């Protein structure tokens, strides 16, 4: 009963918030509704008994990714409305629906759902975090390490891409150049 109420509430809110994200003209509105939708998606995970996944969703998505987006938005003018030359909505609806249908048929068609057996079953009386830890550090140890290296590479790439010429202002390029020239002249002397 409560599960059904929570499910319908969360799904209606998530769909509405993500529609705002996709349709809104303002970056700030889009980002805020995206963050709220991600909090509600972690609610789905808690209903489904995937406690650890829900906490990771909250920490990584709502904590890290949205903070990164909001920091990046300081570089762009966030208050101004975005002027886009949008493609006609009916065409997009048709194409999006059709391709989603094709994808579902492609991936769900060959699956014979009665034949699926649990490879790593959950245990009764053991918490979700313990179960996840055991499977993650035995069967999925190598992908885990590879993911760690990938995150390190992404961090270095982000620092190098965004940190280049960070001392220069985006709006006052000329004055900074002048200061550079003054410094160079001082060095020359």
């Amino acid at each position, binding site marked *: 009963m409560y599960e059904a109420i929570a499910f319908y509430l969360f799904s209606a809110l998530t769909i509405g918030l993500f529609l705002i994200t996709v349709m809104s003209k303002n*970056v700030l509105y889009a980002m805020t509704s995206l963050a709220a939708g991600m909090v509600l998606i972690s609610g789905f995970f808690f209903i489904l008994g995937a406690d650890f996944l829900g906490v990771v969703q909250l920490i990584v998505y709502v904590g890290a990714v949205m903070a990164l987006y909001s920091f990046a938005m300081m570089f762009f003018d966030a208050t101004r409305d975005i002027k886009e030359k949008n493609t006609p909505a009916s065409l997009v609806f048709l*194409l999006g629906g059709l391709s989603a249908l094709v994808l579902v048929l492609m991936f769900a068609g060959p699956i014979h759902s009665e034949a699926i057996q649990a490879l790593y079953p959950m245990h009764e009386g053991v918490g979700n975090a313990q179960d*996840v830890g055991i499977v993650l550090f035995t069967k999925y140890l190598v992908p885990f390490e590879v993911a760690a290296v990938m995150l390190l590479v992404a961090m270095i790439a982000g620092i190098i891409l965004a940190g280049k010429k960070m001392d220069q202002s985006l709006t006052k390029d000329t004055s900074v150049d002048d200061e550079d020239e003054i410094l160079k002249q001082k060095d020359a002397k």
Partner: protein
Amino acid sequence: MIGLSHYLIVSAILFSIGLMGVLRRRNLLMLFFATEVMLNAVNIAFAAISHYYNDLTGQMFAFFIIAIAASEVAVGLGILIVLYKKHGSLDLDDLATMRG
């Protein structure tokens, strides 16, 4: 009672919303938001299948998807900042320089 198909339908609707955003948007930052929506929709489907088949593999895949999404955002935002410094705009029509 809520079954697996309920969750899969919600996930499909969210994925369609994200796909619509990717097709419709012209601003690069908004395109990133739409890809986040799609990734989250897939995560819901994985967690639901994992719950209803009593199998942990779905949750594992969801973890790796979250890790990949985090690194995608880190690199993607760096590229966005470089593009904005170079062109002063994030509109895809302004950035199209290889028109034949």
